């Protein structure tokens, strides 16, 4: 395949940035999107140009590091996958592909397609945990049975990879889906219930402080989330928040 790539280039946080065009040839359908980017970069390096910076690591959809906005969609046109799992067979010979970084106030661009998502970590630091020491001197793991349904739901919520596609797809750049996934996971489990109220209040506070927008229920996040994190989590978090706020 021959493709025409339009890629966002931005030298640093202060740089204005612009879209640049890169034609590329010899792409085959079995290549992943990032392997196509590797090919481009190796060509750029060997011809003395500067390669395109982008984030990635595991390349199997689990670390949450890759983050491209492709043809106007977070993680590209395929559903239920991250950018690193997207394969070139989803594109056609001659296509023009637009590649941009996540765009959100709380995710400033560092360079080209690389953004700073440390705001997510700061939300977690404010409450995304159970306050238990790691001494191992806890109760036996089977001493509190957990209904399978709750365990399964908690697991579903816990599969969030923290990629930020939900924020990037949301016109308000809201982080509700991400935050609600963690709040839900822990509020569904007996171990997390103890501090459920403080958790949700603290995490929502940090989310607001970090400059994420409000949720207006457009649902774009759920559509683009590569892990299928459901809007139900947002509803659950809203209930938890109300409970927390009322008893505070």
């Amino acid at each position, binding site marked *: 395949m021959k493709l025409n790539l339009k890629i966002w280039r931005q030298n640093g946080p202060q740089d204005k940035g612009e879209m640049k065009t890169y034609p590329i040839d010899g792409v085959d359908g079995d*290549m992943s999107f990032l392997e196509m980017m590797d090919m481009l970069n190796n060509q750029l390096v060997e011809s003395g140009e500067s390669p395109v910076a982008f984030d990635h690591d595991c390349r199997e959809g689990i670390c949450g590091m890759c983050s491209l906005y492709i043809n106007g969609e977070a993680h590209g046109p395929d559903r239920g996958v991250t950018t690193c799992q997207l394969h070139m067979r989803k594109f056609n010979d001659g296509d023009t592909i637009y590649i941009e970084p996540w765009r959100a106030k709380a995710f400033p661009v560092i360079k080209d397609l690389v953004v700073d998502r440390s705001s997510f970590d700061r939300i977690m*630091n404010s409450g995304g945990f159970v306050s238990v020491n790691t001494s191992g001197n806890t109760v036996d793991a089977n001493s509190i049975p957990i209904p399978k349904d709750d365990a399964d739901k908690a697991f579903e919520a816990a599969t969030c990879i923290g990629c930020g596609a939900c924020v990037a797809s949301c016109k308000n750049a809201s982080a509700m889906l991400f935050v609600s996934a963690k709040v839900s996971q822990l509020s569904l489990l007996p171990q997390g219930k103890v501090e459920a109220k403080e958790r949700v209040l603290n995490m929502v506070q940090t989310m607001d402080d970090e400059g994420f927008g409000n949720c207006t229920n457009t649902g774009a996040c759920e559509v683009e989330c590569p892990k299928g994190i459901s809007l139900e989590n947002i509803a659950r978090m809203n209930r938890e928040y109300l409970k927390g706020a009322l008893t505070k």
Partner: protein
Amino acid sequence: MSVLDSKIPEGPIDRKWSDYKNKIRLVNPANKRNIDVIVVGTGLAGGSAAASLAELGYNVKAFCFQDSPRRAHSIAAQGGINAAKNYQGDGDSVFRLFYDTVKGGDYRSREANVHRLAEVSASIIDQCVAQGVPFARDYGGLLDNRSFGGVLVSRTFYAKGQTGQQLLLGAYSAMSRQIGKGKIRMYTRHEMQELVVVDGKARGIIARNSVNGELERHSAHAVVIASGGYGNVFFLSTNAMGSNVSANWKIHKKGAQFANPCFTQIHPTCIPVSGENQSKLTLMSESLRNDGRIWVPKNIEDVEAIKQGTKKPTDLTEDERDYYLERRYPSFGNLVPRDVASRAAKERCDAGYGVNATGEAVYLDFAAAIERYGKEQAHVQHVESPTAEDIYKLGKGVVEGKYGNLFQMYYKITDDNPYETPMKIYPAVHYTMGGVWVDYNLMSTIPGCYVAGEANFSDHGANRLGASALMQGLADGYFVLPYTIGDYLADDIRTGAIPTDTTEFDEAENAVRSHLERLIDVQGTKSVDYFHKRLGKVMWNNVGMARNEKDLNSAILEIQNIRNEFYSNVRIPGKIDELNPELEKAGRVADFLELGELMAIDALSRNESCGGHFREESQTPEGEAQRKDDEYGYVASWEYSGNPSEPKLHKEDLVFENIKLVQRSYK
């Protein structure tokens, strides 16, 4: 520094750890506040160590090269974590887990370390559940287990195909709590470049901030390296793209010996290589071998027909298939250990029975499992005389529940639907048992420099059993290191903060700067990947699944050549003081180019087959690995001599007092 002192405590095996813990020196809480510890790596080992050390009261500085500690490569572990809980009542015990692990490692690990691992395994599960890790449960609400290769009990805890993710998020949450309290200072997008040694003790690191390229000095009273494994020396592996040996290699060059570098695990079930532009290989978890059956066609004509597309695998009848693991190893069948399963696949493919275009693939088939589960479900749900389609649907539902995300991953990569046609799989580099030599306290040969998780050589001998790496990483970080490091730090309560404006820090920083300048100044014509791929090919062909003297000798020469060419013809664009992913890669590949040679030297010097290390010169008449305990019953530990081609060998003899050595058999 030549005699290796493993510091294994005296006493009977099942008392060593508890007695030792009772006698170990402690640091009082007020003094811990004056002690700093650096932890490089935030995977299961580093993350759990950082959280635990911070909880104890030390000031922790943690480093990772990703943009968040949650993204460490442990996140990708799929299948599960072992623990001797015996919840299934199937005869499991601490001793059995200990025994299985020593035998699985083909008797090349330390008994005392492995026993300790088995002892603390149960606490790991308790700990993780308390943190809110959502392990799989049965309908009664209790924890579920599955089986992994090389054992006859069900002791593996799991969270679908995302066990590593859930465990790492647990450790990350424990870290987050300490970061929130200010007890851990987290440095993301930072790469350790050098260890700083002051008066013979590890006292700090030089790290490069990859956002702006600045070299930073960080001091501490002890340094913990938990930087993961080095499988990426093969270029193609199941490791994440950034996984590297550099932190390990830097300490090696500063005096830490590197043990059993050639012990590499080649995992039998990975998606086969598809093309030249491929950047990594994807694992299909070993847990799939609980239900999947491995086979190739019995007749070579069918192989040809499948390759030409005139036959499909599903067209072949049962007698036209060779379930070669079940045939060769009737008692363990598809659940033989990884090294055995990988070699068996290679044997069939070398004989011409590989089922894809490159001839390097075998089938992993779920049809029988789907049918079995379907019938079971039909019975449970009282479906009267179910049709084949009913059974398929019900069975598919069960398989999806167990392995859904793996099947989806497979489908996305290959465009083949594994519910309908068998998966194609082939062995790929996965894990490295070798690593920095550590004593019982997890301290390397540099005082104050500890190594945990996959980065140390530790507990898995010559072959790691499935679901044991997660166990080891968390054991090291939650339950071993927090004790053993105290014994060392007890001497530092009056030392005070370590200054960074000293000649030792100056020298270390200058060395890093000149190395980076040397790389960037080459301005040759080839990208870093070009050299990395070439190195990978040599490693895979000559230092891979089967090794022999001739190929190893030629690998050594070839690696030296590639290394020389790298330093005269690599092209790294950009500058040192900016975000520069090519420079980061170059630094890692430079270290792989030295490590690769050491792996070949080590493989050459060990003229026996054991675990994942298969020397063609040393096999039984049936083609199984032939150990030579009298000659090679030791850990090969290599000291850096100043020249990567001339390492110095030290031996730690392995003493087995509790387990009798026998030739491993899974027949």
